[in-house]
């Protein structure tokens, strides 16, 4: 591990890569602060830039920096404006915004930055310990196990989608998988479902799809509902950021919270589909429940613990979500799915072999996580009052520019203007799906995993001359049963709970 760390350190502190971390963190903070634009949209917009860098290490370092920056930026807008850019920072606004209203915006931002830093750093240490362990287990896997594992991953993402949402999430996953079959795959060398269109010969571009699924609907919502951005302009003028310090007493209160939430957040982040949102809400709830009675009442009114808990947990979870990506090559969240797509475009296949085949990529990413967190703490925090000025950019200018960058992202990836029409078309479909509360991250994850899933299934079927591999390999069978249980369990439990509630009502 020490050798790996050294390789990572020497790669990450190369001046160009350092510049990428700093650049990524600042860009991420800038855009992440805009209400409505989450990390997924920002990473999608930045991917063409990352891909043109050509070097997978620099690209991944840049994107990881953007990711951290965006989460930090999202927390800033939650605290200053009560306008969380992403679901993962909603819990931050519970106590962060009341603090800002009391004139402690600077202190709240520092607490958020310190907790994020601690959560991210402890998460990175845990990643360093657990990823190699998981990788060594994963090296024993064959195509059949991989296929089963991907099915488990996809079902888990649907299973964690929430009550009444499992079917919808599964539907979106399947839609993603169906879309992945369009075009000429390397495996069969024949075009499928292209409807005779030349533009579909190479399939749908994942950058276009990522833009259409996340960035475009967000921009459309900003246009349709000016209240979403108007919230911004009010707060930006009102929330003055003055004193950035917190007292030693307050620091002492935060330490146990940070310790607990980094570990809890990390492990929640490792689970596919759970991610930063659940980690932050759960972290908030746990800390409120275990706090002494007097402090419990402070939660929601500007409690330091209430701010530190979700901030630590969401950053630790973001780091945790890199575990399945780096060790198994299976993304557990929309953001890591986008990162996986970028890596594949750069000819790097994440998975258990990544650590042995391209150790510099693996370790440089981990080291750049530390550096990224450090950059956020020492560079971004003092700059926050200036970066917050972006919130004063008039909406009339902001929205056309967001749309333009979305268009550019799709165009420069393919250099084909048909891609822009596909972008707009899918953007409209994605907006309608969002109206009906369909989750879109499973669609993108399904799309990205589709090719790998089919490859592994085909390879297993070739070896076993049919579907026999399911019964020949007990681990694959076990994983497939687990996938079925994951999908069916939430519905079964909801039904049982409803029945029990009915029984109680009858008893009355």
């Amino acid at each position, binding site marked *: 591990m020490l050798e790996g760390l050294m390789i990572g350190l020497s790669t990450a502190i190369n001046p160009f890569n350092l510049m990428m971390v700093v650049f990524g963190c600042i860009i991420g903070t800038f855009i992440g602060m805009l209400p409505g634009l989450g990390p997924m949209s920002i990473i999608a917009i930045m991917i*063409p*830039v990352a891909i*043109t860098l050509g070097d997978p290490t620099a690209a991944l370092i840049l994107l990881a920096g953007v990711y951290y920056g965006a989460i930090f930026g999202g927390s800033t807008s939650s605290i200053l404006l009560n306008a969380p850019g992403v679901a993962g920072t909603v819990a931050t606004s519970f106590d962060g915004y009341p603090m800002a209203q009391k004139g402690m915006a600077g202190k709240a931002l520092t607490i958020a930055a310190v907790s994020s830093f601690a959560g991210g750093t402890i998460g990175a240490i845990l990643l360093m310990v657990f990823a190699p362990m998981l990788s060594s287990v994963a090296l024993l896997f064959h195509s059949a196990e991989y296929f089963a594992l991907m099915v488990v991953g996809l079902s888990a993402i649907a299973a964690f989608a*929430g*009550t*009444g*949402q499992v*079917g*919808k999430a599964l*539907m979106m996953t*399947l*839609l993603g998988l*169906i879309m992945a*079959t369009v075009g000429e*795959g390397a*495996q069969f060398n*024949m075009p*499928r*479902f292209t409807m005779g269109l030349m533009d579909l010969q190479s399939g749908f571009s994942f950058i276009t799809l990522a833009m259409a699924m996340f960035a475009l609907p967000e921009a*459309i*919502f900003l*246009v*349709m*509902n000016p*209240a*979403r951005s108007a919230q911004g302009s009010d707060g930006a003028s009102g929330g003055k950021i003055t004193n950035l310090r917190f007292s030693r007493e307050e620091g002492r209160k935060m330490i146990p919270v940070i310790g607990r939430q980094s570990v809890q957040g990390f492990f929640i982040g490792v689970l596919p589909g759970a991610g930063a949102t659940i980690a932050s809400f759960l972290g908030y709830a746990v800390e409120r429940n275990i706090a002494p009675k007097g402090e419990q009442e402070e939660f929601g009114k500007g409690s330091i613990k209430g701010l530190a808990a979700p901030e630590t947990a969401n950053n630790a979870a973001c780091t945790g979500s890199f575990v399945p990506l780096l060790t198994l090559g299976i993304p557990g969240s929309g953001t890591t799915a986008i990162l996986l797509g970028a890596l594949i475009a750069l000819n790097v296949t994440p998975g258990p072999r990544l650590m042995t085949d391209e150790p510099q990529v693996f370790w440089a990413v981990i080291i750049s996580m530390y550096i990224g967190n450090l950059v956020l703490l020492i560079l971004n925090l003092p700059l926050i009052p200036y970066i917050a000025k972006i919130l004063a950019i*008039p*909406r*009339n*200018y902001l*929205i*056309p*520019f967001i*749309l*333009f960058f979305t*268009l*550019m992202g799709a165009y*420069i990836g393919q250099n084909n*203007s*048909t891609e*822009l*029409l596909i*972008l*707009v078309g899918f*953007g409209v479909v994605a907006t*309608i799906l*969002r*109206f*009906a*509360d*369909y989750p879109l991250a499973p669609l993108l994850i399904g799309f990205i995993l589709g090719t790998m899933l089919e490859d592994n*299934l*085909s390879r297993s*079927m*070739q070896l*076993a001359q*049919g579907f026999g591999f399911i019964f020949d390999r007990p681990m694959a069978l076990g994983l497939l049963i687990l996938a079925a249980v994951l999908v069916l369990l939430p*519905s079964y439990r*909801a*039904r049982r709970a409803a029945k029990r509630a009915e029984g109680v009502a009858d008893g009355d």
Partner: protein
Amino acid sequence: MALDRWIALVFVALCVLYGYAAFFTMDHLLPPFMQRNPVWPSTFPKILSICGVIVGLVVLLGIEKQSTEKEPSATDINYRNLGQYHIGQALALLGLMVAYALCLRPLGFIASTILFLSLGATVLGERKFHYLIPIAALATFFVWYLVQEVLGIFLRPWPTFLVN
């Protein structure tokens, strides 16, 4: 019927069409040597179409127990009252994006981008053209320079008739 069920209906129809293509139109194109393989190009699509129809029907028929408590909407927009929102502006901007896609080649990057940015802001209510047009032009040239010179991706800057 609620919007999510309509979407499920469309999804089931899509899966049926997709399944039809996979089951009935793909296999006869297969060269004879591939027919001995246990896996055909249509194998995975066939599995997907069956799963798709089943899951689509589960959502369509509301078999899954729905959550009683309403979760906060991610969009803050109630689609049943679209009239309350700036739907016209959103549609106009989408139209502009389509026009941009169609004009990018004939008009060139610079002219179409300046037009897109200025018209986009105008649609949203901006009337200070003496600020707007110079900002749009400056941003366009900056992005063009960045993409063409720094990233090295070719973007045709001028209209087609000026180049040929």
